[in-house]
């Protein structure tokens, strides 16, 4: 059978069998939780509570600062011990709430209110999504409600639920689809209503056919939701690729999916919306896949936001050879140095690799031999070979001007295939970061 798919891409081993059979389990609360004021793309939230104040689980503790921002909710009942600079996974220190969790508390009481979601208007749903502190759980942490208000000149006709989960090791979306089909479909219905679109498509890679079947069973008559199995290939889950696979539409460079009439949401995001919105709750926990050869008890855990990575690791147990901790999947995730960084809303997985893991043994970097593997792999159809050579000659501006550097979404396919072990993506990140700085500087100079 010819499966729907996109051009290029790669086939890394998926390692999903480590966790895809394990049901989601709840993780205990850590002694203190670290809730960053900025867990999303956009402006950091503004604190609503003072140091020393008591908070109840689910209570809003920070408010959105403007449209592209979301509120934060207390992930546990306890006391705000401090608001201070703490390391973040990306490096810079950011302001965080430190919540001392009341160990004695049952953590049952939830701060919530109920609305009748069936009666809500599109506007109200969007507002409710923002109030819930929803951000994209697929990894980008982009505030969900912003995506629900496409630019007025874009007519959105299709909602796509992204259930591809193409990253190796990760299975949290798979588990959510298996265990919470109702929530997911409920979420889709809500967003469909809010966006005013007719059809919705759930895109699922063909290595998760069981999820597709379960969802199929829960579909209702007039849902107009289609489940589409797509080819297992990395990065099938990237929204541009998925849209191409499902609908044959190509999002133009530099545009958002709404330019071709599509909105894409991660299935985790949609399931949480389906679950939280009827109760007016906020995002305070998420499912995290903990996996990799360095973990003793891999699995899918329901983790309160703010739990230190260290706590999670201790709970899952690491081998003595554990050597590298990756937040997210191995293709796009980032390894962290400080283990006191917290689990944030966008963190879908944690992969621990061992010291002698063959995957870590990247050989010595050699010059590009122009084998063209990377060109064949790049889903954006860029020319990573050329870009890489230009990067090592520091021709950053030319990379952007002539070779579409900024259209690279850092999927890592090119580095994955390069037989010369050239850290292409890393070069591109350097180039982009220098270009960004220079652009900012030139803008500053101009003013």
């Amino acid at each position: 059978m010819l499966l729907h798919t996109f051009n290029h891409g790669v086939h890394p081993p998926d390692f999903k069998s480590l966790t895809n059979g394990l049901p989601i389990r709840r993780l205990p609360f850590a002694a203190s939780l670290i809730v960053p004021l900025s867990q999303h793309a956009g402006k950091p939230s503004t604190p609503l509570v003072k140091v020393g104040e008591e908070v109840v689980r689910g209570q809003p503790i920070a408010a959105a600062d403007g449209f592209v921002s979301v509120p934060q909710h207390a992930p546990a009942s306890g006391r705000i011990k401090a608001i201070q600079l703490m390391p973040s996974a990306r490096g810079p220190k950011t302001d965080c709430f430190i919540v001392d969790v009341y160990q004695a508390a049952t953590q049952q009481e939830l701060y919530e209110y109920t609305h009748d979601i069936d009666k809500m208007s599109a506007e109200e749903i969007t507002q409710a999504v923002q109030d819930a502190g929803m951000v994209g759980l697929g990894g980008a942490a982009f505030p969900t409600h912003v995506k629900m208000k496409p630019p007025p000149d874009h007519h959105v006709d299709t909602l796509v639920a992204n259930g591809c989960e193409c990253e190796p090791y990760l299975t949290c979306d798979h588990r959510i689809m298996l265990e919470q089909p109702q929530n997911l479909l409920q979420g889709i219905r809500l967003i469909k209503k809010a966006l005013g679109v007719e059809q919705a498509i759930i895109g699922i890679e063909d290595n998760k056919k069981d999820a597709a079947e379960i969802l199929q069973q829960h579909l209702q008559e007039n849902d107009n939701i289609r489940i589409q199995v797509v080819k297992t290939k990395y990065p099938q889950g990237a929204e541009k690729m998925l849209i191409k696979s499902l609908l044959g539409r190509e999002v133009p460079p530099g545009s958002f999916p709404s330019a071709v009439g599509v909105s894409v949401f991660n299935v985790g995001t949609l399931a949480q919306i389906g679950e939280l919105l009827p109760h007016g709750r906020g995002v305070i926990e998420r499912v995290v896949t903990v996996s990799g050869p360095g973990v003793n008890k891999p699995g899918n855990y329901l983790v309160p936001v703010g739990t230190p990575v260290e706590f999670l690791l201790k709970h899952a147990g690491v081998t003595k050879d554990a050597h590298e901790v990756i937040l997210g999947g191995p293709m796009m995730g980032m390894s962290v140095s400080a283990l006191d960084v917290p689990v944030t809303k966008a963190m879908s997985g944690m992969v621990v690799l061992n010291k002698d893991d063959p995957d870590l043994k990247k050989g010595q970097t050699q010059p590009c031999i122009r084998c063209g593997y990377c060109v064949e792999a790049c889903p954006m159809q860029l020319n990573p070979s050329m870009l890489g050579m230009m990067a090592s000659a520091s021709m950053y501006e030319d990379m952007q001007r002539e070779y579409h550097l900024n259209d690279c979404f850092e999927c890592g396919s090119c580095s994955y295939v390069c037989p010369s072990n050239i850290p292409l993506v890393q070069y591109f990140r350097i180039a982009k970061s220098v270009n960004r700085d220079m652009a900012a500087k030139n803008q500053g100079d101009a003013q």
Partner: protein
Amino acid sequence: MAPYLNIIIAVTFMAGFGLLLASVLVLANRRLAVYEDPKIDEVEELLPHANCGACGTAGCRAFAEKLVAGELQPGKCTVNTPEMNQVIANFLGVELGSQEKITARLACAGGSNVAKRHGNYQGVDSCRAAALVSGGGKGCAWGCLGLGDCKEVCDFDAIFMDKHELPQVINDLCTACGDCVDICPRDLFSLQPLSHKLWVACKNLEKGEAAEDECRVACNACGRCALDAPEELISINNNLAVIDYSKNNLASQIAIERCPTGAIVWFDKGIQKGQRAKKIIRKEALPVE
């Protein structure tokens, strides 16, 4: 044909030919010439062709145009030798114009022997790249990563990495082109006149223990320097000592004396720290934690 007739034809022809050429050129000069000051070319010849932009223009040619137009003075070029600039000044009949020597200065003293590292960064040898990988593993999120992007980018070899993996600027070679300022992912370089001798070599925004935990020479915002300083020459802002260079004439070596960590320094023939600063005995790098 008689040879002399041929000779006469030839000479006459050449004379006519020369006159014709000359007339054409005369005409062309009258009708077509577009005026462009020849001095620009000549001045450009005398410039170093480094096109570094240190003079504040888009390159040597642009600088030459501005020089000839009298908008700038030759002294602005910091790459050329002073003698050569004098030649230009004489040629154009203008003042040499002087410019205080400006140099690049680093706001970090956290070498590998005093600043902690949490992770073992493995990847491209580049600060930019390391900064993007969870901050490169350096404990201090503001400090120098020590992989030498600045050294690489400096066209004038004015930066070398010392044995603690901290960049050091050779003032004599630095042309103040600003490339290192642009490249540093942690924004640690700035261009300063040599007369700015008092200097805070830290950008850590934490205070007290938190700051000193990560780096033994961090500014811990204790405020003693500010207390001492005349007329608010030094103040504490956002957990960091800040020097108001508009009052630079008040600055003196006394200012560094009370700093407990040595984050505030005095530049004069090398870097001087206050007496009270903790002594740093360790020579080798701290182990990765």
